[in-house]
Structure formats: structure tokens, C-alpha cells
């Protein structure tokens, strides 16, 4: 169980809710609630904006496809023993 209460999307201000829509498009999946990590990033927009842009830049197709990068992300998560 998370050590904090994850706020529903409706508890965030309107500009942040627009960002949740962007996240939905990024994952191309209709979440009932934005992913927990999106909601964590949105807690501090002055951090989340930079971190989110760095993440998006890292994951955007370039010399490697998005799928190849997702597999890199998965092995890093696995090695870090992160279930999330």
C-alpha cells in the first residue's frame, strides 16, 4: 500500500488535469485514473515538468525505437527490483 494517499485526478487543478490527458495519449490507454507515477509527478509541477520532459525526451524514438527503449526501461526496473 502506498505510503501516501494518491489523489484522484479531480483533486488536481485544471492545468494539471490537462497534463493527465497528455499522459493518457502518451500511453495510448484509457486509465480509470492517471497512472500513480503521473499523479506523483504532478504533485510538484516545478519538478515534474523538468523530469517529465527529460523522460519524454529519453523515450522518444531516435536511434532506438520506442519499443526498444521500453525494453531498456523494463530491464532497468527489473534490476532495481521495482515492482511498479
Amino acid at each position, binding site marked *: 500500500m*502506498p505510503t501516501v494517499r494518491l489523489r484522484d485526478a479531480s483533486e488536481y487543478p485544471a492545468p494539471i488535469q490537462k497534463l493527465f490527458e497528455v499522459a493518457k495519449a502518451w500511453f495510448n*490507454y484509457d486509465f480509470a485514473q492517471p497512472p500513480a*507515477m503521473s499523479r506523483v509527478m504532478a504533485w510538484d509541477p516545478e519538478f515534474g515538468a523538468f523530469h517529465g520532459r527529460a523522460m519524454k525526451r529519453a523515450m522518444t524514438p531516435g536511434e532506438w525505437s520506442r519499443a526498444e527503449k521500453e525494453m531498456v*526501461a523494463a530491464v532497468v526496473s527489473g*534490476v532495481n527490483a*521495482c515492482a511498479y
Partner: protein
Amino acid sequence: MADDALWYEAALLVGVTNALNVVADSPLAALEPASPSAEAQAVFAEIRAFYDRADVPVAFRRVAADPGYLADLWGAARRVFADNQLTRRHKEALAFAVSVTTRSAFGTAFHLGEMRRLGVGERGVMEVLGVTQMFSSYTKIADTLQLEPDMDGIAVVDPSPAPGGAAPGPTPRPPEAP
């Protein structure tokens, strides 16, 4: 990346990468035979040919005192690093990410070198490093807050059987009440 075969292949690669790194990064130089046996030399020749290099990576030299073990370790390593459903180039990127994440000096340098040898440019290297760094951040944030997985619904289930096996039969119906 919907086929399970790709993920089995990646998982085996992660395991072998870590296995090679733990030996290479440990203070085990004293275990390297001064004069490897003819059997070990034959394996070394295969390793040099596979990597197109004059020397044998330290992870293999350190287990050469047991040529049988060396041969089996090399057989497993060659299998997981060779082109298969995942390309060798992509596999080296995965091994590089694993090595950076586990702070392996040997693995980081070795797989960086292999990526470059196989044609990955500086942009490609930076892309892998960026993904590795970003997910080293996300994973620790998630763990600190003990976030629970909420993206498993995105993944599709691969219904194909095990290699060489038969597809699963229909799910048996539970017995009906009399």
C-alpha cells in the same frame, strides 16, 4: 514487443550479463590461469572470434581453470548475446543498461564498447543512458512511496505455446451442481 519470446530472451540476457559482471568486477585476478589448457584455449578462440577482438574478456579468463565450466558458461553467453529475435545490437544496449544500473565497471565499459563496435552512434548511446537514468529515478520514487503496479492492463497476453509445445487447451468447465 508483445511476444513473450522477446521478454524471455531479454531476461536471460540480464541474468548472464550480471553473472559475467560479478566475476569480472570482483578481485579475482589471481584465479586466471597463467597457462590456460588447450581446451580453454579453444573456447578462448571462439570468444575472440565472436567479439572480433584480440583479447578475451576478463569474465571468461577468470573461470578458465575449469575448461568444462568455461565452455558451458560461454555457450550460454553466446546464445543470449547472439542475434535471435532481439538483435545483437539491442542486446548490447540492454546489457549496457544493466551494467550501468548495477554499477559494474567491467560491464559498463565492455558493453559500451560492443555497442559502438556494432554501429550504435553517440546519440544512440545517450538515448540508452537517458532511459537508464530516468528509470533509475522513477523506480526509486515508486519504491519510496511503495506505489502499486497500475499499468499491467496495458500489456497484451501472448497465447502462443512454449517453443515446440502445443497451444493450451480450453479451460475446463467447473463441475455443475447436481
